[in-house]
């Protein structure tokens, strides 16, 4: 449940949303992704107002406008690694050759290029999350949403995943990340939003004290 929340995220920002369980972090991300609808208020992503969009329009918006990384990866178990990545490109109507090349490039960058033909069941948690990152980035989305991307990983693997996200952010990728791990967020995010009971309780830049 969100209550009176007003938030703007600039292009190219790496924004982390912090807060305890039930604070509304995931709800915020779901609203931005068009997976959930606000009972009142508006959500605008890249100039596109989501209010009033039908299910089909929202689906089309998600294909190219949003990349989503889930806590539990949510890979399709019956597709191999590269096909898990390609399915998103295919849904977005990408060209086959270009999409394959980009998928392989992303997997290589994420250090799992050699596992392109493996199935998710054979991958570690960290590897699965890298596949999820590749899938989320394949369509060059306006915003990359990450909901507790390290929540199911050990701390070392979580650190690696965050470093990967930072690397993509440094190349201009806008990222909105939800997490409850203060230390991890403090080390990587440039802007930190604090929430409690659906309300915005703080908004600070990295290195600043909470405003």
């Amino acid at each position, binding site marked *: 449940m969100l209550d009176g929340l007003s938030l703007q995220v600039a292009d190219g920002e790496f924004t982390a949303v912090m807060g305890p369980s039930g604070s509304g972090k*995931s709800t915020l991300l779901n609203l931005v992704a068009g997976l959930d609808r606000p009972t009142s208020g508006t959500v605008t992503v890249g100039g596109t107002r989501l209010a009033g969009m039908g*299910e089909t329009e929202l689906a089309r*918006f998600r294909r190219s406008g949003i990349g989503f990384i889930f806590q539990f990866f949510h890979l399709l*178990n019956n597709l191999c690694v590269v096909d898990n990545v390609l399915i998103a490109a295919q*849904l977005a109507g990408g060209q086959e050759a270009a999409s394959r090349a980009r998928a392989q490039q992303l997997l290589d960058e994420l250090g799992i290029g050699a596992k392109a033909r493996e199935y998710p069941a054979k991958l570690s948690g960290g590897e699965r999350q890298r596949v999820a990152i590749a899938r989320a980035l394949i369509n060059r989305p306006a915003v990359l949403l990450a909901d507790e991307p390290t929540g199911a990983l050990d701390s070392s693997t979580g650190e690696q995943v965050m470093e990967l996200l930072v690397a993509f952010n440094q190349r201009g990728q806008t990222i909105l990340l939800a997490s409850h791990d203060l230390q991890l967020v403090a080390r990587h995010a440039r802007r930190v939003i604090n929430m409690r009971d659906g309300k915005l309780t703080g908004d600070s830049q990295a290195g600043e004290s909470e405003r």
Partner: protein
Amino acid sequence: MRPVLTKAIADVRRHRLQTLVVFVIAALAITVGSMGGTLLVQTTSPYDRAFADLAGPHLIAVFDTQKVNQSQVAATASLPGVTASVGPWIYAAVPFEKNKAKFALSVLGRDDPDGKLDREQVVVGRWIQGPGEIVVTRSFAAGNQIAIGDRLTALGTPAKPVLAVVGEVVDVDPNPNRGWISSGALASLVAADAHLDYEMAYRFQTATSRADIRADLNILSAALPPGAVAGSASYLDFRDGYNFNNSLILTFLLAFAVVALAAVAVIVANVVAGAVLAGYRDIGIMKAIGFSPRQVVMVFVIQMLLPALAAGVVGVPLGAIASKPLLDQAAQAMSLPPPSPLAPGVDLIALAVSLGLIALAAALPAWRAGRMDAVTAITTGAAPAGRYANRRVGWWRVPEALTLGVGDAFARPLRGGLTAVAILAGVATLVFASGLYSAILKFNDLFAQPAFQVTASRLGGYSDAATIDVLQQDSETNLVVGERQLTVAVPGQPDPVPMTIFRGRSQQLGYRMAEGRWFGGPGEAVVGVVLNPYHWRVGQTVDAQVAGGQVPLRIVGTCYCFWTLGMDWSSYAPVAPTAEPTDYIVQLRPGANVDAYVGRISAAQPDFLLVQPISTFGSGFDIEAALDAMVVALAVILGAIAGLGVFNALLLTTRERVRDIAILKALGMTPGQVTAMVVASAGVLGLVGGVVGIPAGIGLYRYLVDAMARVAGFSITSGTFPNSFDPVQLVLLALAGVLVALLGAILPARWAARTAVVNVLNLE
């Protein structure tokens, strides 16, 4: 037992939709089982059933009133070996007329339709209540367009009394040309010097074979003056004649019942097995908390049997209701009384077999899963793992939703296979039924005689020469062939052989030859392809005992005709020099008006010639309509069951894949694409089932038609009707399989499209 029941009942409550599907499918299965079982019983021994219901007699004997009086005949009731009898009734052949159409009826004076034996069952109207009324057989009424209230003019006396038709009856005598009037009224219908007989019906202590019946008849004859017994008919002859005449409808009913039951069994087993396979994860959890393999099996069996038992309450009466029109039509086509659609024995068996099948279909996969270790069962049930489940994305020319759907169809190969088999069984059954239907219609065409249009029969003592004169004098007569039908003895064959003897240019009758040629003169014969239980072949010689003499006959051909042996009069004349034809087949000149011709000949000799146009083959009832009704019933029920099978399979798959569907939606798959994916999954199963069902149905048709022909002693095989399948119809049937699958997919697809992404993914 308590935990088993707790878990089973909880599952029934939790999986309400699946329980509803099992309930509906079980209800339809029990309905078909009840229908099929009843039809099966009908086709196995319909005559015997009617014989028992109507207290059929072993023998009907006719006594000459000039040799014996009524009390002498009545006294035969107490002869040794006679266990029951009814009669005697006064009896005579009476010509009738209605709107210039003539009929010859064997009329009995009988006041009471009931009695210990030979009961007449009134199926329309009522029994006679006094003079001036007549009751006829239902076959006669249907064949001659006679309805209750019609008035028949008796032509036997100058007074020409008129009788009102008040009822239609059925009994165990297959001869349709019979009527009943009050016992005192017969004298007014016939001339004073007309020949009258008594008829009496008997049951004997021993009457299982023709030899028994002959011995019983000898006792009757010996007790009366010589020549008193003018004729007789045994129930064995009636039964054989009945079975032969109704072989078509019996064949179809038998095939319909057997194939429909088999198809329903396959589909029901698939649905139930599919439902259990979907519960593998549950099985693993049950085992993990201490359920034994036996208890696991019991949970699933009870879970499936609970809705199935409830289905029995609906299915049995539904089966009775659905059977009634089929049974009525079949009974009408077979000239038998309509049986009660409530057959408790058959219904109980249908119920027991259906429940047994469902229990077995549930027990087998549950037993298999019950023997797995808990982790394997959970793993098997939790994800579509395995090499069949894995697939590649990369079919870029086809929309991705379709490629995913096609892949999903066999992600679980066993469940996908079972669903395809359910469609296959439905399509194969309909292909089989349509082939058989077409073959039966072609079978009728084979026996049609388009070259001849009219038959004439001599009545009373009217002579052969006078008949020929009347016929030849009409300018529209082109050709007349005389005909006489006999049964002859052939050494080595236990039963009399039906023979037709032709006088004249019989080769022009237009009988279609299956092999060889028509007979060309004395010593040659043609064998009918239908009634040839002796398997006589072209080139073989048969020694027939005809009219006390021996006639060696070389078989020169086989034809599509309803007699066993046919020969020329030149073979018959040497052993029966004074014999004459009794019936005449007339070919008219081109362009002649058949009805006008029949009217002219009837008017020329109104009292002694029975002239009729040659009608289509059959008993006067619309066999095509009966077959149509059965094929439609079969199509509707099989379609419903197969559709529900697909629905059930997709429901399970959709429920199982809800997480994947949510992920795909999160990645941007639209509701329309989700629908297309699920529908494509069903479509490919329907296509596989439909396409494979076509050759399976054709193979089933060939195998069963050949097997039934062998059993029935027919020389006809499936090869006799090479074009029984219309290619367009086959394509439509394959598409019907796809359509049924698509219909079954609509609801699961819509539910899948509405999957709430956030709820599903947040529950993980």
